[in-house]
């Protein structure tokens, strides 16, 4: 059976095509201001990749903040449910899934069957989400892709006081002026956000194995900070972690049969 999942995030919209439990195509597009259009485009791109037509797809499920806009979908689900379903398809040992998206941080605890038993969300404050790292990369004039590897080179811990993205920008600028090595600043920033995410995750009770999904998963510096803060051996990150929500939606679409 072929199903599709669409994750309509605040910043990007992702679509995947699933055939019998295998992801056969994925596409991403910027959400922009017309969410429905973005969803149509992502889906069309994914279908083109798989050389399939809309009519080949048995069912399409949507998730993400904009999921209501995908009127053509056959069903929709919360980000929490989609994240865990998607993660468990890729790694069935996971019991805690952390998702750091552009505008939200989430932690879910789940059963082996992928049922969410507890979750905590940090929303509406950029300091607890991926936007924080993006804003800091701008303040530091460092490309986002460089931040991870850079922070791993840090030798010294520097203290960051600001708990707000806007105030942290000024703090970063003054640290740079004071000639603080950039790798130390980046490490402090990753530690700060990891700390916030972990204290939220602790409210649901962290159980191993722990997985991290969402675009921030590409940032190896953040993944390392998260692992240290969680005090676990390792944090599992899938390939292309930003697609996990969409994969979960496609899984749910398949299960709906």
């Amino acid at each position, binding site marked *: 059976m072929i199903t599709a999942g669409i994750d309509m995030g605040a910043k990007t919209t992702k679509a995947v095509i699933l055939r019998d439990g295998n992801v056969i195509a994925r596409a991403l597009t910027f959400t922009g201001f017309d969410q429905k259009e973005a969803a149509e485009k992502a889906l069309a791109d994914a279908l083109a990749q798989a050389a399939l037509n809309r009519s080949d797809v048995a069912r399409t499920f949507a998730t993400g903040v904009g999921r209501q806009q995908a009127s053509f979908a056959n069903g929709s689900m919360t980000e929490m449910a989609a994240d865990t379903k998607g993660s468990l398809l890729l790694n069935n040992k996971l019991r805690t899934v952390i998702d750091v998206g552009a505008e939200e941080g989430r932690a879910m605890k789940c059963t082996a069957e992928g049922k969410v038993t507890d979750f905590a969300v940090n929303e*509406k*404050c950029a300091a607890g989400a991926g936007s924080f790292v993006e804003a800091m990369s701008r303040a530091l004039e460092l490309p986002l892709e460089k931040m991870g590897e850079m922070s791993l080179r840090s030798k010294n811990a520097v203290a960051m006081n600001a708990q707000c993205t806007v105030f942290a920008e000024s703090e970063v600028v003054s640290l740079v002026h004071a000639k603080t090595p950039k790798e130390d600043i980046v490490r402090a920033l990753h530690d700060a956000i990891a700390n916030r995410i972990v*204290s939220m995750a*602790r*409210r*649901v009770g962290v159980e191993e194995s722990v997985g991290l999904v969402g675009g921030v998963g590409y940032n190896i510096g953040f993944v390392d900070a998260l692992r240290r803060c969680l005090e676990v051996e390792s944090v599992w990150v899938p390939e292309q972690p930003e697609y996990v929500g969409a994969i979960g939606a496609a899984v749910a679409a398949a299960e709906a049969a």
Partner: protein
Amino acid sequence: MIANYGYKDGSGEYYISMNTDKCDGCGDCVTACPAGVLEMIVNDYDEKVAAVTDAHRKKIKYSCAPCKPVQGRPVLPCIAACQPQVIQHSW
């Protein structure tokens, strides 16, 4: 005085409110808090009262998170320790 320590940010309202008029200065809450969030201070009117430390004021949502699990939240240690019922949490 009702001293509200904490903040309101985009994600919600996080205040620890101290009714300092009721505070007898015993310091039991300070001892009870596992995270070092509270301290005894001498305030501007020369009263010895409990307060939230500077270091925690901007992050109590996170500092207090271990005391506030999503499910089965117990009575908070600081509140349980305080006989005169000085302390309130807004979340």
